[in-house]
């Protein structure tokens, strides 16, 4: 398996040919319940998501802000497991074999599942990439490198604190794209300006030809467009799952039309990103 020819690399090549940036949409698998989350997942590509980040809910999401924390809790409360998350991708692939899906989350559920079993099931189900927040390069031996062997793009995160000295280590095994965390902080917190981000991206581009997606704190179509003007893709997560939170009844159940509301917002984000000058 070759990590340089995957749904992810093909999608970024296509975006480049189109001359525009991409939209990466994050949703938590199983939020607010399995069926509704599948309905959302199935509609994301048509709504304009170029890549999908599917959150694997975890009880202790240390790098996430309140929106994604409660999103994980809703999913877990309704019985979401890693097995179900993988199954939802397996089902998805019967209808769309092109849109890249990247699982995002924390290491422990995968460790509990077993790394070999996980990589086997994930590749068979059609999962293209992994973003594991608590596996920095220092801990890349047990999952990241085997994932690359299995043909899965392990997406490395870089942050404002990743200095010049450290950057080569972070980029050493990067493939697919690089995820630039635009702020020091948690998901959903305030964002950096596109000028600041552009300077940081130049720093990374000096050392890598991979596309760069920028995430953390992108909450509106305008902001997404702003980021898309300097990055190869903009990632939106907290603002999307907030729409889910806003469309629950008093018992925490999905109100009718929840998925359409989420997908409507994704459409606005996509319009913003597609209209961005690049």
């Amino acid at each position, binding site marked *: 398996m070759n990590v340089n020819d995957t749904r992810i690399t093909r999608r970024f090549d296509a975006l480049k040919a189109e001359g525009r940036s991409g939209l990466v949409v994050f949703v938590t698998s199983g939020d607010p319940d399995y069926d509704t989350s599948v309905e959302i997942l199935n509609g994301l590509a048509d709504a304009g998501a170029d890549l999908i980040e599917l959150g694997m809910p*975890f009880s202790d999401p*240390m*790098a996430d802000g309140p929106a994604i924390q409660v999103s994980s809790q809703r999913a877990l409360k309704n019985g979401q497991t890693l097995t179900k998350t993988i199954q939802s991708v397996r089902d998805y692939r019967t209808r769309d074999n092109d849109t890249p899906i990247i699982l995002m989350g924390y290491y422990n*559920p*995968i460790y*509990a*599942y077993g790394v070999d079993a996980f990589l086997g099931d994930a590749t068979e189900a059609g999962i293209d990439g992994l973003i594991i927040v608590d596996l920095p390069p*220092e801990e890349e031996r047990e999952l990241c490198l085997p994932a690359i062997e299995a043909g899965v793009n392990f997406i490395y995160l870089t942050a404002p*604190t990743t200095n010049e000295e450290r950057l080569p280590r972070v980029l050493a095994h990067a493939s697919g794209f690089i995820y630039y*965390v635009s702020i020091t902080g948690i998901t959903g917190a305030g964002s950096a300006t596109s000028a600041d981000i552009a300077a940081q991206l130049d720093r990374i581009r000096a050392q890598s030809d991979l596309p760069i997606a920028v995430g953390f704190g992108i909450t509106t179509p305008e902001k997404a467009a702003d980021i898309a003007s300097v990055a190869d893709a903009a990632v939106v997560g907290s603002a999307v799952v907030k729409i889910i939170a806003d469309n629950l009844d008093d018992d925490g159940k999905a109100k009718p039309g929840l998925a359409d509301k989420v997908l409507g917002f994704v459409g606005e984000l996509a319009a913003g990103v597609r209209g961005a000058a690049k």
Partner: protein
Amino acid sequence: MSNLNTYRAGADEDGHFGIFGGRYVAETLMPLILDLEKAYAKYKDDPEFTDELSYYLKHYVGRPSPLYFAQRLTEHLGGAKVYFKRDELNHTGAHKINSTMGQILLANRMGKKRIIAETGAGQHGVATATVCALFGLECVVYMGATDIERQAPNVFRMKLLGAKVVPVTSGTGTLKDAMNEALRDWVTNVENTYYLIGTVAGPHPYPTMVRDFQCVIGDEAKEQMDEAESRLPDTLVAAIGGGSNAMGLFHPFLDDPTVDIIGVEAAGHGLDTDMHCASLTGGRPGVLHGNRTFLLQDDDGQIYDGHSISAGLDYPGIGPEHSWLHESGRVNYVSVTDKEALDAFQLCSRLEGIIPALEPAHALAHVAKIAPDLPKDHLIIMNLCGRGDKDVFAVAEHLGVTL
């Protein structure tokens, strides 16, 4: 038991104790952890640093703490000679300050002006607020909303000491969530903030560094036992939540093969229920809060909360070095229920005039189980790592007494 030359060499350069430990943190934090590792390596043997730490431990904390022969308790149990290592006599009433003092001196040298900490029972929060007051540093303590309710006196103490106590409602509102929230703060305030972790857990170098600062307990005990009995003790017993007091007592004795070492976890309502927090006896290895260690978790790898009558033991994990010592067989880990700890709490109060914290009451409960069957020349050291003032309200409630 494996045949190692030493049990005292860990962690390795990547922060691992066997498969345990490590640095499972977000990239944003990684450079900070590497900085901390460098700073600790630079100062830990620097005479100016160690002299300053010794000065404050002696004149401010009140070290050395006595090694006290518990004569009445020994007579009552009718077997082994029981000694208490009296870290409950430290300023702030527990062993926690051994490490907060060391870490605050390090934070000073690193130029950090803002200190954050997590706390469960509030002892580590109080010890952190204390050293921050001493050195005039801003202090923010994250504490689960549930714990704030059950530990009101310690919350007030922290506030008196000038700390800001932030209630954590995310997750289940207990110690593990407080630690998550402290990590979220740290990842946001990377420039000026030092995260002062309270136990031998978290990403490398914390487990090693906190252990080193707590080793003053075992180093003193070894010397004091030699003075009292002209030999090594036969058995060490200490309670374990995250495991810092136990590691502090145990570590200096790990390479003395005649010394039997026992860690006591909290069995809560019993290991056959889901109301306990015995990570080693009731959990399995996983990754949380920056390290791999034994954790209470379900089949899907979701962490669940422990339960113990002692808020200080109420953590779903344990320091990674304990996990390694457990797997290697060097330390024997057992557990004690709420009920047994409550009995020991009362026994110690009546026989020795010492009201212990509920944490060491767990250790004492195990001592009470084994001492009667041991010979009279068998020497036990139990780490009396905290005083019980903070627990009197909770104990009264459990005993059905209205104050």
